[in-house]
């Protein structure tokens, strides 16, 4: 049974995906039941495993795909952090998506690829070896494409093409990095760090850079971020789950794996590549915020904000001091909760009020109080206002920066806080203090859209309010760091 668990978890997304592709557009009920059932089952399995892993258990399964090519699935604390985030948000997004699409066309294709993406994300999280990671990573690359192109208009197709033009070269780079490294070390498992002493430092530095390019593209590091704002033409559930959480987090998760499980903290420090990575993350944080300021479309502004915030995770991983690691890992969850809330809200504004631009938000606060309250919570959390989750990450990253003798990180955090305030507060002001245009028709009588939004916002609030408890993202991140990285 225990060996089957990782496979079962994967199947909860793969089976709905496989069946959904063959369903007719009209079989709404079956399709919804399949997807919701899969998501519920997955959350259930994860709850069971959370208790087991907290008690010290870990699960491992290997499937031989070809001679010498083993698909290794493994559930450790870090994997579980990412899986439980993506699974619970998948459940929320599925509810949201069912309401969002209503009777719109091509739903089987959408939900099929959507579940496939979640399957790939789960696979990335559970991968126990570099090659398994790569396979799922590429599956994610490809299965995202139909979702970006979903609306099939010129803009969507252009954005989807742009996405591939970023993703495919970077995948190639990643493959080169893997092959180069594994040719001298043999297959790399995340459980036992590879012996890199046979490879000369210059090559190692180049390989590290290739790895960062390969996985960092998904985390939208500058200058490989251009695809993300363009991909905002996708339907709201895609922007919410994939572009705020799954895809970008897969990139960030990949960077964490590379730094901690492929190279190892000590080697990264020895090679002197940690500081350049932290600097790159900092540049991304600032650049993303500056660009967000200039956007006049809500989703675009949120996308640039994502670019900026995801690099907090990379910053934590690169600094590699105890608090920075914990802060970065916790931010993986915090940012996901807050950003999905914001994207859910952006989708509701679009669907229920026809509002996409920032000017359109004027006065919507009192017309759509639930949505707007959630939006405000998410935005304030992004700025780092307590007690919403964001401030916890900031404090931990700041202390972590000092622990790593990188006091400049504090200025990055400070500047980012102010920039976040500069691009989010005007939106809140518009929502609650400006007069609405008289002809705006806005209502939020769509419980299936609003309820997941409220749930995500509440989770973001509780993650900060109860940060010190063991079950919070921070508590779990501390557990991971203590167990795996800070012996």
């Amino acid at each position, binding site marked *: 049974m225990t060996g089957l668990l990782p496979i079962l978890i994967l199947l909860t997304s793969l089976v709905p995906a496989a069946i959904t592709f063959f369903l007719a557009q009209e079989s709404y009920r079956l399709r919804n039941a399949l997807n919701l059932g899969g998501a519920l089952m997955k959350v259930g399995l994860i709850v069971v495993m959370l208790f087991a892993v907290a008690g010290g258990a870990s699960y491992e399964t290997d499937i031989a795909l070809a001679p010498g090519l083993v698909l290794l699935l493994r559930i450790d604390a870090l994997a579980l952090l990412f899986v439980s985030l993506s699974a619970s948000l998948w459940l929320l997004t599925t509810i949201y998506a069912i309401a969002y699409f209503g009777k719109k066309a091509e739903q089987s294709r959408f939900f099929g690829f959507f579940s496939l993406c979640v399957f790939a994300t789960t696979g990335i999280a559970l991968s126990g070896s570099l090659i398994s990671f790569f396979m799922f990573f590429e599956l994610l690359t490809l299965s995202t494409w139909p979702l970006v192109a979903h609306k099939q208009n010129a803009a969507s197709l252009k954005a989807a093409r742009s996405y591939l033009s*970023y993703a495919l070269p970077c995948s190639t780079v990643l493959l080169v990095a893997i092959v180069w490294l594994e040719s001298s070390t043999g297959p790399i498992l995340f459980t036992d760090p590879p012996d890199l002493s046979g490879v000369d430092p210059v090559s190692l530095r180049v390989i590290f850079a290739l790895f960062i390019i390969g996985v960092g593209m998904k985390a939208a590091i500058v*200058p490989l971020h*251009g695809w993300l704002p363009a991909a905002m033409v996708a339907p709201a559930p895609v922007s919410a789950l994939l572009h705020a959480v799954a895809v970008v987090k897969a990139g960030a998760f990949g960077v964490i794996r590379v730094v901690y499980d492929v190279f190892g903290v000590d080697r990264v420090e020895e090679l002197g590549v940690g500081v350049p990575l932290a600097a790159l993350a900092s540049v991304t944080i600032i650049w993303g915020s500056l660009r967000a300021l200039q956007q006049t479309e809500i989703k675009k502004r949120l996308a640039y904000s994502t670019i900026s915030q995801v690099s907090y995770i990379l910053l934590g991983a690169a600094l590699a001091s105890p608090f920075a690691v914990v802060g970065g890992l916790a931010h993986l969850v915090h940012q996901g909760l807050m950003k999905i809330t914001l994207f859910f809200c952006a989708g509701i504004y679009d669907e229920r009020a026809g509002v996409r631009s920032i000017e359109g938000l004027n006065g919507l606060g009192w017309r759509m109080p639930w949505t707007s309250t959630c939006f405000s919570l998410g935005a304030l959390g992004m700025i780092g206002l*307590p007690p919403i989750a964001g401030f916890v990450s900031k404090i931990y990253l700041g202390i972590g920066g000092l622990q790593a003798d990188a006091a400049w990180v504090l*200025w990055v*955090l400070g500047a980012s*806080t102010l920039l976040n305030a500069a691009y989010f507060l005007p939106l809140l002001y518009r929502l609650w*203090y400006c007069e609405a245009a008289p002809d705006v028709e806005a209502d939020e009588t769509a419980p299936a859209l609003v309820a997941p939004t409220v749930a995500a916002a509440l989770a973001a609030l509780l993650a900060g309010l109860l940060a*010190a408890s063991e079950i919070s993202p921070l508590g779990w991140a501390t557990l991971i760091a203590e167990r795996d990285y800070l012996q």
Partner: protein
Amino acid sequence: MTLWTGPILPMVALTWPLLLGALTALPAMRRFAVRLLPLAPLPALWLAIMGGQGVTTAPDLLLGVTLDLDEARRLLLGMTSALWAVAGLAAQPMAGKPHATMFSGFWCLVLAGNLGVFMALDVATFYVAFAAVSLASWFLIVHDRSEKALHAARVYIVIALLGEVALLLGLIIGAHAAQSMAIDEIRMAFGDKPLNTVAIALLVIGFGIKAGLVPLHVWLPLAHPAAPVPGSAVLSGAIVKAGLFGLLLFLPDGAFGLTLMILGLTGAFGAALWGLTQANPKAVLAYSTISQMGLMVMAVGAGGAARETVPYFALHHGLAKGALFLLVGVMMAARSSGQRILSLVLAAVVSASVAGFPLTGGALAKAGVKDGLTDMTTLALSLSSVATGLILLWFLSRLWDVKSSDGTGIWAFQVSLPAALALAAFVTPWLLWSDWTGHEPSYMLKWDSLIDGLWPVAIALAASAVLLRWQLPQLPPGDLLQLLGRWQPRTMTLPDLPPLRPDRRKAASVLRERATEMEGMLIRWRFTGVAVPLLVLLVFAILT
């Protein structure tokens, strides 16, 4: 999960206002929102009267909440909750007016933050509480949404956010230096030589903004008058004390002493004199607040015994300044000349106390601080009483010019509120005098003390006779801000990064041409036959 350990009252004192604030959001409660306000600070007031009974911890909340009271905390908590309770009563005529519900909700949030600042033992709780009191007071300032209020609120939020960031960074450096989240340990870590200059400077900026420290005070004369009267009372009486208390909590004794004393005295005199150019009585009071806060910051900088008595000074100022702001509202509501005269007399009595007239609470507060000061600063403190006397006489004359406009509610009830605060500002310093200064009450009856309090007021009276004739220019509030001119937000344009594919069509055609060329080269066996083995060798050389 442990909800809490230790006495429950501190937890109740903090969560009760939050609960009431949340209740105001319920549609059924909207009509009663304002009615709840006087109830919000009652548990905290009870706690202050009872005193701390040990540390309360809530290990799962935030980053581990710890609360307790010592004597200074208890005094400020008592003053703050009493002022908030009275101001909550004074807010009652707002019931049913536009935006009253929103005002009530955020009133409760600011209150909870203000109380939390005085109770937090750990830096995370302190930061959360400070952020609440600092940023949520934006809603008190912007309340009536007039052009003036919006401008004040805009200036305020920019400065408050800067302060919040400075504070966060300073606290992070402190927590790292102390390897602890406990405030006491952070202060001790800061005290170790060499001083952590950057961190302390950041904290002085963060707290100084809130405490109206010159030159970070520019928001205050705009914001305090912009809020409705009860809001101004808590802003000027209680909320500024959060910044002052932050300085007391985190700065080691004597750190940045000279800087703080110079800035404090600059504020004490500069603001009092600048206030004479203001027409709006609330703006005059706001400048008086900056001036009084300057004195307290000066005492913090002086260190030693003077620093110890700052909470005692703050107690009197909070109650008295609250009373003065409420009296502006009472004057607006006065309907007969008898009522107007009574308001003015009451304001005059409280003003005399703030200026340190002998035997008043203010005289005791000043005498307490003077005890720990050197000769020079003692003289400065006495001279500042002249300035205070002047600005408050100017305030009285401006108050008399206030037109009755707001004739709702029962006037007798309204006037009883500042009267109660004035009484408290007189009685509590006497009750606590021996505990805080170690002197007998008879100390204040000595000729020295009496004359000490009397001469500045006498000089101020004489000077004001000249001043009221001699028309000073009337200037808009905000002094240094005027130098910056009206800040206009400008749209910023950044160049976008060059796209990854500069020109697809051109690139494709170039690629095609190159590919044909390459193909032509590759199909020649002479070339490939050499190149492939070389490539293999090269790969091997790299990999082995």
